[in-house]
Every structure is written in structure tokens, then in C-alpha cells.
């Protein structure tokens, strides 16, 4: 029987510093065993437990899209013991991984619908996975219009800058990038995500909204979505809680009777309304 607590070995193929404050790094991991790669089937929005022996484990959303074969990407904010150790990892080093875990975004629900993606700060990782998944030539026809609103505090704190500029050039995607405070080189929008959303006023008609960001951004964005007449069942968000096992056994990430690791991390606003505010 497969032991769900046993990490599979992966190797670090590439390390990339994303932001000017050097607190966010993207690790690109490659599989060391071929059979593990075959078993690893995931959807955007799922997460993994990255494990450094001697330091511990921590959960991270998968930033790569399932269409990008051969490797997995994780963007990591340096905050605690495990993330600091992850920041010290170099190319060629071995790392453990458990996953994919969680439910992921409801891909079937997006079929034949418009997609509105709203992201703030470094919570953009799994949203990047979702957008990249739908932008793949095989999947682009499955959904209608894609709108992405992405904000960060400062231009230097935006993730995936190269990719954002590529997205900007595409005609099949509407991208609005905004920052709270611009600098002298910044020519884009300046403003908070909820206000930019209000300004852009995307239609709620046949649209699914996905929103990820810091709690304060989510708190002010929900009312704006309500004002745009998005039904609760078509607003999705991905939650974070402290986790250990990632498979619904260790008990710490529950909100009411649901576990963020097993029943989430993606929940609809309709679901969250019925749960105690334990998050």
C-alpha cells in the first residue's frame, strides 16, 4: 500500500528570484524517477508539500500548468524555517515532494464561460497555473474571454514579469496590471485591486470569477463582485491554513466540517458563507 506521508524525490532544475526584495523565489523541479512523473497528474489550484529533510514540510500551490510537462514550479515566499531552507537550495540539489493534494479549481465549470482572474501579491501562483492552462492552444477554445486583474504593492514585487509582458501582447486575453505605489519607470495602472476591478467592471454574465490574494484584498473585493452581480456560486477563492499532513488526518486545517487540505483549498463563496469564520 502507498504511504501518503512518504515524499517522492525531485531535483531542483532552476532557481529564479522573482522580486526586487529577493523574498520570492521560483523553484523549478524535475522528477528523478520516471514512474513518479507518470503518477503525478494534477489540475491548476492543487498544492504539494515540499519537504526538506531535517527542516520539515510546508504546503505550496503549484505554479506551473499541467500542460507544461516534465517539471513543476513553486514560488516561495521566505517567511519561516522551511521557506528559508528552500531559499537556500541550489540547482542540482534533491528535495522531497508529496502531492498533488487538494481539489484544485473547478475546470469543468469554466467550460464555455468567461473567466475573470483577480490576483494580489504572491497569491498569484496558482492563478498563473490556471491562466497558463487555459492559454495553452489545446484549451484556449474551451473557455470564452479571459480577463486577468493582477496587483502588487510595487512594480518590483510583481511575479512572472517576463510572462506578464508576453500576455500583454496577446489579443485573446485582457490583462490589467496594477500597483499600489508606482515608481518613475512605471507606466501602468496605479490603484488598489478592488478599485481597479470596479473601474474595469467586467460583465458577470456567464462568467466565473477566481480571486486569490491577501485577506484584506479579498475582504474588499467580494463586495465589488457582488455589486457586479456575480452569484456566490460563481466566485471562487483558494484558502490557506496551517497544514501538516495535507490529507485530512492531522486535523489542523478544518473550517467547520471541511478540511482545507482535502476538501479545499478552492472553495466557492457560497460554500464559505455556510462555514464558521475560522480562517
Amino acid at each position, binding site marked *: *500500500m502507498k*504511504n*501518503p*506521508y*512518504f*515524499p517522492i*524525490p525531485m531535483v531542483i532544475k532552476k532557481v529564479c528570484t522573482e522580486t526586487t526584495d529577493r523574498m520570492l523565489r521560483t523553484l523549478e523541479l524535475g522528477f528523478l524517477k520516471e514512474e513518479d512523473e507518470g503518477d503525478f497528474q494534477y489540475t491548476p489550484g492543487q498544492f504539494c508539500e515540499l519537504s*526538506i*529533510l*531535517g*527542516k*520539515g*514540510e510546508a504546503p505550496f500551490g503549484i505554479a506551473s500548468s499541467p500542460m507544461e510537462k516534465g517539471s513543476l514550479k513553486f514560488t516561495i515566499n521566505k*517567511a*519561516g524555517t522551511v*521557506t528559508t531552507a528552500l531559499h537556500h537550495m541550489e540547482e*542540482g*540539489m*534533491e528535495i*522531497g515532494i508529496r502531492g498533488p493534494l487538494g481539489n484544485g479549481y473547478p475546470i469543468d465549470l469554466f467550460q464555455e464561460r468567461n473567466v475573470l482572474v483577480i490576483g494580489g501579491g504572491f497569491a498569484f501562483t496558482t492563478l498563473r497555473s490556471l491562466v497558463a492552462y487555459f492559454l495553452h492552444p489545446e484549451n484556449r477554445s474551451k473557455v470564452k474571454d479571459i480577463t486577468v486583474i493582477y496587483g502588487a504593492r510595487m512594480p518590483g514585487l510583481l511575479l512572472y514579469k517576463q510572462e506578464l509582458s508576453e500576455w500583454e501582447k496577446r489579443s485573446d486575453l485582457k490583462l490589467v496590471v496594477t500597483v499600489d505605489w508606482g515608481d518613475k519607470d512605471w507606466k501602468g495602472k496605479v490603484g488598489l485591486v478592488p478599485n481597479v476591478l470596479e473601474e474595469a467592471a467586467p460583465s458577470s454574465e456567464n462568467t466565473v470569477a477566481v480571486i486569490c490574494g491577501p*485577506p484584506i484584498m479579498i475582504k474588499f473585493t467580494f463586495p465589488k463582485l457582488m455589486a457586479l452581480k456575480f452569484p456566490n456560486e460563481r466566485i471562487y477563492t483558494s484558502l*490557506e*491554513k*496551517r497544514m*501538516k*499532513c495535507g*490529507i*485530512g*488526518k*492531522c*486535523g*489542523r486545517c*478544518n473550517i*467547520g*466540517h471541511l478540511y482545507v487540505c*482535502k476538501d479545499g483549498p478552492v472553495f466557492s463563496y457560497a460554500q464559505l458563507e455556510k462555514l*464558521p469564520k*475560522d*480562517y
Partner: protein
Amino acid sequence: MKLKLDKKDFDNFLQSLTDGYDLYAPVQLAEGVSVFKKIDQPGEVNLTQLLPQKPAKDIFFPQSEVMFRYEKVGNQNRMTSMEEVKKERILFGARPCDIEAISILEKVFVGEEYTDVYFLEKRKKTTIIGLGCNEPLSTCFCSSAGGDPFLRAGSDLFFIDLGEAYFVELLTEKGMAFRKNKFFQEADSRNLTLVKELEEKAFEKVGYSIPVEGIEKRLGLMVESSFWDRVHEKCMGCRICTYLCPTCHCFDIVDEGDPHRGQRVRNWDSCLSALYSLETSGHNPRPTCQERTRQRLMHKFYYFPKNFNRVACVGCGRCILYCPVHFDIRQVILWTSARRRRRFQWEVTR
């Protein structure tokens, strides 16, 4: 199959069990302190304490357990899983509430999607010998929580103390393997009458006065109730109730050692700890004792029944016995009924 075991043969019987099995039974560590422990000599077994402090879950889900060991060889990590149980095991002398709790843990650990191999391996390789409770404690309320002092469910063999002998029932296939044991004799009708008398006496003592039935419906309406503003006040968050609870199953995973050599270990954890849900950012979804007490009680009596159709409480009363401030879970259950809640509001605002 109805059998009996003479008490003069008891030690020899236990000795015969240690031949083929690892035998776990209640052992007294100091006066008033006993735990389930692996034993070598029958003399170590001590059944004077009805409920050992540490519940029998310790045998299947130990307080601290090594999950795997690791070692760095060159640039590669070598990991060895520690789930395997080499020798068949017998758990002797567990009470019906503890045994019922193991089947509750099984609901959590053995799932459709993910199975906790460490728990399952131990569960599969253990034969359980239950022991009826002739003299339940004043804190016992098993019959209100869906069990009873002589509940056979979950046991492979069941013993009842008749004074000079043990009445023995073989209940499952694993239990039937013992039918040829040379120390067992045929039980007679007098033994059967005595068993019936003991059962009736114990049932009467435990009673059915705690309204556990239907509690999930009542709590479902109380998720955001002002009830939780006051209930927790007595609790000082020492967490002993959760560690000694036979159904509490939260655990923490930590690495012991350095990057070159060490082990990944899991330890019992408790939702009543402030660190339990504290996130690296400093945000804590359950920042005070109020949210944490609500989490403990709601998980047992509302969330768990919603997922598994049974309250996560077996009425063993350990949380009442060992609470330093006499926080009585029975009282909280009583307060959840509408009439009592009014009384509670009145009492605390007086």
C-alpha cells in the same frame, strides 16, 4: 461461544499469550498512574484502575511515532519507512469505551482516498481482548454516548470478571482462533446468570441522563451563538483533555536530526494550543481560548457526526477526571438543550 477462565490460570494464560504475540495490557507505573504497555511478565498486569490515564489509542496511534528515518548518502536521500509491525499483537484489558474509540479513529485514518498506513498496520495485526466494566466510575457516561459498559463491538474476545473466574466470549474470527486454548473451560448457566446481573447493575449505575442524542442538530443552530462567549471561561488551555481523550487524533509532524541523518516523527497535538493553528505570517484563525474551546466541542459533537455519522465522544470521562479546573463536558452537553441554555445564561450573568 461461551467459555470461562479460572483466575488461578490467569497468569499462565497471559504467559501463553506472550509466546506468540506482543502483549499490551494496563501496567501501573506509580500509585494511581497506569498506562497500556507491552509486557513480558504476567505479574506486570494491573487491572485495579478501571481506565488507565492514557487511552488504548496509544497502542495504535502512539503519543510519539517515527514515520521514517533518513540518511544522506552522497547527494541522495535514503529513506526507510517504519510502518511495519513484525509480530502479531494482543491488546488485553481495554474497556469498551476505549475499543469503541479505536473504531472511531479507524473512520479517520482509513479512508477511501488516503490511508494512514501506520495506523492500519497496527490495527490489522492486533487482536483485541475487551474487559467489561462491573463498577463504572461516577464520571462514566458511555451509555449516553452510544456505547455501554459491556459493549462487545470491536473486541475479538470479551472478558467479564465474575469474581473467581473470567467469563470469556469469542466474538470474531480472530477470537475464535483461541477456542482451543487449554486454559478455557465451558461456562455453565450459573455464570450466565451472574453476567446478566452484573450487566444490569452496571447499566443502572451509568444511566442515560446526558442528552448526547441529537446534539449535532442542536449545535448546528449554535455555530455563531453567544453561548460560546461564556462556556470557555473556566478553561485555561492546559490541553490534558485532548491528550487523554481516546478519540482525539490531531497530530504534528516534525523532523528530528540534521540534514544528513535523522527521522520524521509525529506527535499528538491539541486544538486547544494557541500554536496549533498559528500561521507563519502571525495570523491565527483561532486566536483565543473561546474559538479553541468551540473547535474542540464542535468537532466532537457537530463536525465529526456530519462527516462520519457518530459523535467523536465515547463517554469515558477522562476529560472530566483529569481536568484541573473541573470543566465538565457533560455539563456543556446539558447546556446545549434549549431549556438548560436559558438556565446557563441566567447563571453566568448573575
